[in-house]
């Protein structure tokens, strides 16, 4: 497993490139001239107070919201502002919601099966049956997310923390190249939080990961480059120790 390369100087070919992106809702500038570069395999934490534009930023990257102005490029060639959620997902952008969102009336196994990378057209889906490689992939994911004993339980019957893990498992099943993870530690115990941090660190390198988080202990455990958002723009960027020492950051966020 390669080490996360966050903190190194920017490479010439970023995975994700946002430049001068703005978006306002009824006059409120949720995102204001935001620029962000994510390298291949990078692990990046995004922090910021409520209303700093974290969720809107993820909505723009995944095609849920269109920016008013600015450029959003995937691997330098694909204009993400023209795509919808399904298209960005098919490109390889996986998203985990803040509130764990799994399919509650399906079993854990079905949740993972439906997330596996495959042809998503209705016709192909109608006729697809389980295969041996598919089953072994699900075994792997169940082991990784520690849900092996819950394979045939309904996802709705899982605990909050288990649902978070299942959703991360579903994200990995998609084999995304970039994971957007919104507050993965919310509602987890301290031990689970640390396990999650380890898991995200191990995923990065192979894939790029952007983590939005409030929990400073968790961000510290990630040990990666941090972007501080404030009023829809980047306030500071760098290692957590450096960023958290900056007076303007302390004023808007950490000092509260």
């Amino acid at each position, binding site marked *: 497993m390669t080490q996360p390369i966050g903190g190194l100087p920017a490479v010439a070919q970023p995975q994700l490139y946002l430049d001068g992106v703005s978006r306002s809702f009824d006059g409120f500038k949720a995102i204001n001239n935001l620029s962000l570069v994510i390298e291949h395999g990078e692990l990046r934490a995004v922090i910021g107070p409520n209303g700093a534009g974290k969720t809107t930023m993820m909505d723009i990257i*995944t095609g849920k919201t269109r920016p008013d102005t600015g450029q959003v490029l995937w691997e330098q060639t694909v204009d993400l502002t023209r795509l*919808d*959620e*399904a298209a960005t*997902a*098919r490109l390889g952008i*996986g*998203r985990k*919601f803040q509130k764990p*969102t*799994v*399919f*509650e*009336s*399906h079993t854990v196994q*079905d949740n993972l*099966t*439906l*997330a596996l990378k495959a042809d*998503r*057209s*209705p016709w192909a*889906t*109608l*006729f*697809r*049956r389980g295969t041996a490689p598919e089953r072994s992939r699900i075994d792997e994911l169940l082991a990784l997310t520690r849900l092996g004993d819950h394979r045939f*339980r*309904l996802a*709705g*019957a899982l605990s909050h923390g288990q649902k978070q893990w299942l959703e991360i498992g*579903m994200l990995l099943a*998609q084999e995304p190249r970039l994971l957007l993870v919104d507050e993965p530690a919310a509602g987890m115990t301290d031990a689970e939080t640390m396990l999650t941090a380890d898991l995200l660190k191990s995923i990065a390198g192979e894939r790029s990961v952007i983590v939005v988080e409030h929990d400073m202990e968790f961000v510290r455990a990630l040990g990666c480059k941090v972007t501080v958002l404030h009023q829809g723009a980047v306030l500071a960027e760098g290692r957590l120790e450096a960023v958290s020492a900056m007076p303007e950051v302390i004023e808007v966020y950490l000092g509260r």
Partner: protein
Amino acid sequence: MIDRRMGIFLAGLFVLAVVVPVGNLALEGQPVPTYLVALIGKYLCYALLAVALDLVWGFCGILSLGHGAFFALGGYAMGMYLMREIGDRGVYANPSVPDFMVFIGWKELPWYWWGFDHFALAAAMVVIAPGLLAFVFGWFAFRSRVTGVYLSIITQAMTYALMLAFFRNDMGFGGNNGLTDFKDILGFDLAQPATKVGLMVLSALALAGGLVLARWVTGSRLGKVLVCVRDAESRTRFLGYRVEHYKLFIFTLSAMMAGVAGALYVPQVGIINPSEFSPANSIEIVIWVALGGRGTLVGAALGAIVVAAAKTVLTGALPEAWLYALGALFILVTLVLPTGVVGALEDMLSRLRGTPSRKEAKA
């Protein structure tokens, strides 16, 4: 693929399809009167219609309040064929146009009636007309991400608009009176008990076929995606599924199934008129499914049969009480049995056996 409750229902349907013809045609003293045969046939058509609605509502969360429109369109396609079968045996004895066209002074058959003297074309239109309407309607509605109560309202508006259109005489579908006075179907006299029995058995076959098809679709991986759309639409999109395509698929399939139900219904009741498009009819379908248990398929079919039979009995005995009884039943089931009668029964059975039911597993 076919679970136990569907096995039981299909077996019951088979028994019905044997007992009724024997009781009506073969046994001395006719223990099953002919009017009852037609009545049972009608209920079976309603049951197929309920299964169609359950596909979209129970499994994909699309609460259509306009499914009566697809049923009626299938019925009109069949009615048009039956009108052409009358030929010159109408009151005006005009072989080239049906009576109602003679009445409004039309000399020639309008283009959209061409070919309806061929059963094959009419049978194709039974699924094509509702399927096409559902496809076009769904294309715009689902692409614009109209969901929930807003979608329900526009489906209701759709069937209401069609009702008003079909009421007009110059639409060429018989206006207010609709299409009626049918004589025969494929050469079989519609007044003959044997024809009625045949239609009833066909309706039972169509219902069985519809149930098995619906079971196959909902049991497939596509069916699981439909449930994903119902429970967490946004999550489904972020997994890369184009939700609108899935909705369009199931909505169109369901409309076609409703069209088949309508086509079998019309020769058995002997008439199709614009009141079939009335919003109240579509709401009644929703009540059948809610009573029986949404997402259970068999429950939807049973709900339709039981409520329609109760309607026949009650409207005969106490006509003014029916709507109150229906409303009260609906409120009662929504409050006490949110999973419908079939869902509640299954919960009770599994509790007796000591295995956790779906509902408990969720809690």
